[in-house]
């Protein structure tokens, strides 16, 4: 065995031994608790035009739902897309995208305007509403009652044609 080969083996061993504690430290470092950073209530108003923004009581909904995945579909639900649809394959971008302590805002993936060609995921308005209706339709508060738009969530701003003739 020549000295070059020995040196290479020693170096490889050293690198692998050194990298194990580093990876271990990174993995076991306590991630900030999602609950710690969770919003109490948010105003969803980026799309508001005909209807007013929605004052969303996040804390109350979490209590009712019992978990994040009921509404946030990024991980752990059947609706999840393939990983690479959201996370770039570039390792640096992947690490930046996978931040376990926070959920990505809906608008990062769901465009605020409808596309004529991109049909793979719903636009922001539909993403919001579908998330709401997943539960609210089942309890009959929206599906049974179309007035639910303005009775439950939205304040009506203008809605031409709704006034009696």
């Amino acid at each position, binding site marked *: 065995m020549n000295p070059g080969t020995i040196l290479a083996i020693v170096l490889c061993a050293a690198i692998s031994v050194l990298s194990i504690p580093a990876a271990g430290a990174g993995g076991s470092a306590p991630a900030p608790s999602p609950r710690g950073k969770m919003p109490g209530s948010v105003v969803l108003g980026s799309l508001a035009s005909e209807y007013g923004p929605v004052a969303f009581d996040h804390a109350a909904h979490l209590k009712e739902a019992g978990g994040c995945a009921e509404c946030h579909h990024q991980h752990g639900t059947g609706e999840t897309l393939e990983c690479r649809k959201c996370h770039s394959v570039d390792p640096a971008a992947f690490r930046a995208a996978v931040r376990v302590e926070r959920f990505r805002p809906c608008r990062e993936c769901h465009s605020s305007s*409808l596309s*004529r*060609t991109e*049909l793979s995921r*719903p*636009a922001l*308005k*539909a993403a919001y*509403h*579908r998330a709401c*209706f997943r539960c609210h*339709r*089942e309890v*009959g508060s*929206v*599906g*049974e*009652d*179309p*007035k*639910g*738009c*303005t009775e439950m969530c939205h304040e009506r701003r203008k*809605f*031409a*044609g*709704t*006034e*009696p*003739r």
Partner: protein
Amino acid sequence: MSESSIRSPGQGEGGNGEGGKREPAGRERAGISRRSCLKALGAAGCTVLSVGAGKAHAARNFSGWPDRFGMLVDLTECVGCRGCEAACNRANGLPAPEVPFDEKSVFEEKRRPTASAFTVVNRYSPKDGPRGPVYRKVQCNHCNEPGCASACPVRAYTKTPEGAVLYDKELCFGCRYCMVACPFYAPAYDYGSALDPRIEKCTFCHERVKAGGIPACAEACPVEAVRFGRRKDLITLARERIRKHPGRYVDRVFGEHEVGGTGWLYLSGVPFEQVDFPTDLPDKPLVEQTKGFLSAVPLVLVLWPAVLGLCYSAKRYKEEER
């Protein structure tokens, strides 16, 4: 009759061979008229046949404008908010409705599109359905080969490359054949104006689409129960949804094949007949049902008088000869 008419040219030729100069003038005239009559008959027959063949050839090879748009309506997503009705009303400048768009009492009865409401949403409580109601949006389905267009005697209907079936009220004289021909009861007649006959129906927001936009109803829908896109992409999307959620959908994309395919496609969680879809429609375009008969009409109109004329002239020729 046939024997004499077949034999007589032979006799004529024989006479000609012996001495054409002795032919009586009247007979010569009759011969020419018979020959030209036969020629005309042959030409007419060939023309009719070739036109017929040409048309049949073109219809076989044309399977629709490749990049035409369509709409995918997912009945399992619709919550019956009637936002599409309101948006349609605004986009088309239609008169304000008698009851506001957020009024749910309209669901008490099944409605049809009218001259002042190009789309309506109906509510159903199907027996095989989910616990809640099922809502179905009704409007013109913009068929690939529209029955209305084939029935219209003045060609007031056009299927555009973008996918819309458009109606030209300047050409219309108010016969309402299109209303009878449409299997979806989509064209509505404006009975309010006696002197200005007018059909009204969904335009697929053609002007908006041509300008790069999206139809008003699809833009307004809060859940994308009405999704606009290229028809072929929407079929892929619909099939994908059925594959991913087999328990949620009936394994059928309504409009993919019905009456030759429609621009609007539907997914449902309950059998389509339970939400009033006409499920007994043939896959062939409606125009195919009448094409055989209608293509025989010019043939009969052209050939029958010619045949009768020929018989008549042959008979006269025989009488004159006698």
